[in-house]
């Protein structure tokens, strides 16, 4: 079955072509069917390949195929080739699975929109590009997908291009991503030139892995850092995260599919894919971890001060992506991919739920104008609650397993440090707080909406609620592929990814120094898993408690005593304004980069361009004109003058000829 891997990206491409070329003459229903079916077919193929892989030994779970040669230049050759292995099959399943659900949801959500067909065309193109990104077997083809999803992201953020804000958000996303892509490209160039100096011309992952040792440690750091710059652009990390909150201008399912579940995880996937380079550069790993941590923390604090549901979710996405980067930064790639997967489920669900709420509230997004919706839209409410519990890390749901895995790994691995984990726990607590702040404000308390909106509130149609329910189920059970050994599981996902990331690491030596709990457990004989188990158990308990504390604080502030936050805002007005305005990062960027570049541009225009370049060109032109007006006098139209000139020429020619005669 694995030899049919090329079908995975081809199906959405077919859907894109059919809808794009003939969509005008289709009924809306047919368009939706074509789009959903194409993605679903990809999902079926992925699932079949997955089933086949399950029956194979771990080493055999890799398949590469070459469709055809793409660029052949001297020793360098790049192929349009696909590779499916333990990592990319997970990505394929997530992209096609969540993608199918969101396509189905979109059919209901976008039903009244005049751009219905355009929407599905772009969405199919996006899935096609994303699948190219995850199934490519070399960096260049991956970059094609990388750029392609960026393009679709731009098109879909600016989907309602009549609105200035949407058009500007699209432009912003595109430009900020471009900066990251530039880093990716430079990294690729540096990689190729470094390897070429050693006589290896390739971009294929397998060959890169085989030749990774040729790159010295001093060059591994810039290469991986450049790739990480690419990842920060696509995956919205500091300093390039600013586009993601604005990307919420697009239709909600787009935010769900592209800006929560799939595209923004491309950076994590890329780093996981290139793990063999990153392990060679500990400095880069540290940078990745620290950036991830700070992104997670800052985005979480910003999420606490937003009133717009989708913006809260956007900051939450940035924050969760930060967690994934912490995971890949400390070398726990499997944990990062695990969190990527569970995050795709519950964050996709949260966005779809937000869309459902919008649908009920006639497009209202401000949580100050909501409240008490739980009776009127029960299905949305239930699924939303599941997702919020999952993201808050309540035990038993998917988010708990994956987040806890990351926190533990951030502490216990060789690259791990205690403060990584502590900071992560703090962030997790803030996450729980702001998610439930949104949740309570939206679904509980008094309804603060206007009368006509109130009158209109209704549950979404089945085509929207069924994907919600499926995703809710996934958000609950998705974590059970990675139950840690501690809780009696076997951490299947880590085993599954072993062929790619190497065997699971044992806790580092520094963990043992923390095992002051052990004596307490030693008597009870609970140290079956070694000394670290006690530490792990304790930390897990602390993390859960912090999460629950965050939920409790949210409940206390927004249900029990709604005055407290208002007082708080009054009292610390400056601080709140600072956070609410996202620490003025946009303004700072605007001042430094945009204004600075405009100023530089104006300077260049007024001085360099107009004076020097135009001066040179106009000078050349007037010189030519002057010379021409001089020479023109020679062309006086008198034939004899021309004949005379010929004769003078003949005199010279004959003079030379005569001189040549011996």
């Amino acid at each position: 079955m694995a030899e049919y891997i090329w079908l995975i990206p081809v199906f959405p491409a077919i859907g894109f072509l059919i809808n794009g070329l003939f969509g005008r003459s289709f009924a809306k229903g047919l368009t939706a069917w074509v789009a959903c079916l194409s993605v679903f077919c990809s999902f079926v193929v992925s699932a079949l390949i997955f089933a086949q892989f399950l029956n194979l030994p771990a080493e055999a779970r890799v398949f590469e195929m070459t469709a055809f040669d793409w660029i052949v230049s001297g020793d360098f050759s790049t192929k349009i080739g696909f590779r499916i292995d333990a990592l990319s099959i997970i990505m394929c399943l997530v992209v096609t699975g969540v993608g199918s659900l969101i396509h189905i949801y979109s059919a209901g959500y976008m039903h009244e929109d005049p751009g219905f067909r355009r929407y599905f065309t772009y969405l199919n193109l996006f899935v096609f590009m994303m699948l190219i990104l995850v199934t490519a077997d070399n960096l260049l083809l991956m970059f094609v997908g990388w750029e392609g999803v960026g393009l679709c992201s731009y098109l879909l953020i600016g989907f309602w291009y009549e609105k200035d804000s949407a058009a500007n958000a699209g432009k912003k996303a595109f430009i900020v991503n471009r900066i990251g892509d530039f880093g990716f490209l430079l990294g690729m160039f540096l990689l190729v030139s470094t390897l070429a100096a050693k006589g290896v011309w390739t971009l294929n992952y397998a060959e890169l892995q085989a030749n990774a040792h040729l790159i010295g440690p001093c060059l591994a750091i810039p290469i991986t850092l450049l790739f990480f710059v690419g990842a920060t652009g696509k995956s919205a990390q500091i300093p390039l995260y600013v586009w993601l909150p604005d990307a919420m201008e697009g239709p909600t399912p787009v935010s769900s599919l592209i800006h929560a579940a799939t595209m923004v995880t491309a950076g994590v996937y890329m780093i996981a894919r290139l793990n063999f380079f990153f392990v060679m550069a500990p400095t880069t790993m540290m940078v990745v971890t620290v950036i991830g941590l700070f992104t997670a923390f800052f985005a979480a604090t910003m999420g606490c001060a937003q009133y717009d549901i989708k913006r809260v979710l956007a900051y939450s996405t940035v924050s969760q992506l930060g967690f994934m980067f912490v995971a890949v930064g400390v070398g726990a790639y499997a944990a990062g991919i695990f969190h990527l997967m569970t995050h795709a489920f519950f964050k996709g669900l949260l966005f779809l739920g937000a869309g459902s709420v919008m649908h009920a509230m006639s497009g209202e997004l401000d949580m100050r104008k909501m409240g008490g919706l739980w009776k009127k839209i029960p299905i949305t409410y239930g699924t939303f609650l599941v997702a919020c519990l999952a993201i808050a890390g309540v035990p038993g749901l998917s988010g708990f397993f994956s987040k806890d895995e990351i926190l533990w790994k951030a502490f216990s691995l060789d690259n791990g440090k205690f403060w990584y984990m502590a900071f992560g726990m703090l962030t997790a607590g803030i996450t729980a707080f702001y998610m439930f702040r949104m949740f309570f404000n939206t679904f509980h308390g008094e309804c603060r909406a206007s009368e006509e909106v109130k009158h209109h509130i209704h549950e979404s149609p089945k085509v929207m609620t069924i994907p919600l329910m499926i995703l809710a189920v996934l958000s609950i059970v998705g974590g059970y592929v990675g139950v840690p050994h501690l809780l009696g599981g076997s951490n299947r996902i880590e085993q599954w990814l072993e062929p790619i990331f190497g065997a699971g690491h044992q806790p580092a030596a520094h963990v043992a120094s923390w095992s002051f709990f052990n004596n307490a457990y030693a008597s009870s004989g609970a140290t079956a898993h070694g000394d670290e188990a006690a530490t792990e158990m304790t930390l897990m308990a602390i993390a859960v408690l912090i999460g629950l504390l965050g939920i409790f604080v949210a409940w206390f502030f927004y249900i029990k005593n709604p005055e407290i936050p208002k007082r708080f805002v009054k009292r610390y007005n400056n601080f709140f304004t600072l956070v609410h305005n996202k620490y003025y990062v946009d303004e700072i960027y605007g001042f430094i980069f945009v204004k600075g570049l405009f100023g530089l541009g104006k300077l260049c225009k007024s001085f360099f361009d107009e004076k020097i370049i135009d001066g040179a060109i106009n000078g050349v032109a007037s010189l030519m004109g002057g010379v021409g007006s001089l020479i023109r006098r020679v062309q006086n139209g008198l034939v004899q003058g021309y004949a005379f000139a010929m004769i003078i020429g003949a005199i010279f020619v004959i003079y030379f000829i005569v001189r040549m005669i011996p």
Partner: protein
Amino acid sequence: MMLPDIPQNLYYILGAVLFTIGAVGVITRRNAIIVFMCVELMLNAVNLTFIASGNFLNSLDGVMFVFFIMAVAAGEAAVGLAIFVLIFRLKGTINIDDIHLLKG
């Protein structure tokens, strides 16, 4: 005493003299038709060198050249003189100094 055969350089000198006379005429005369005739004279001077060279090399190629030069000269005469007639109609003169249609 036995006279030597006529040296070929003499023919060439004669050609050069005629050519120069024609060239001076082209440079100095103002009447377009006389200028045209001077051009014909220059052509003939060249023809003479061709035939002389061909004769001294025992080859007919010089004669062939002259044949085609004559054909071209005939065509040139027809078209050139027609152009003079036209210019005369247009300008009322064929004085070369008064005709500068090509002035840049």
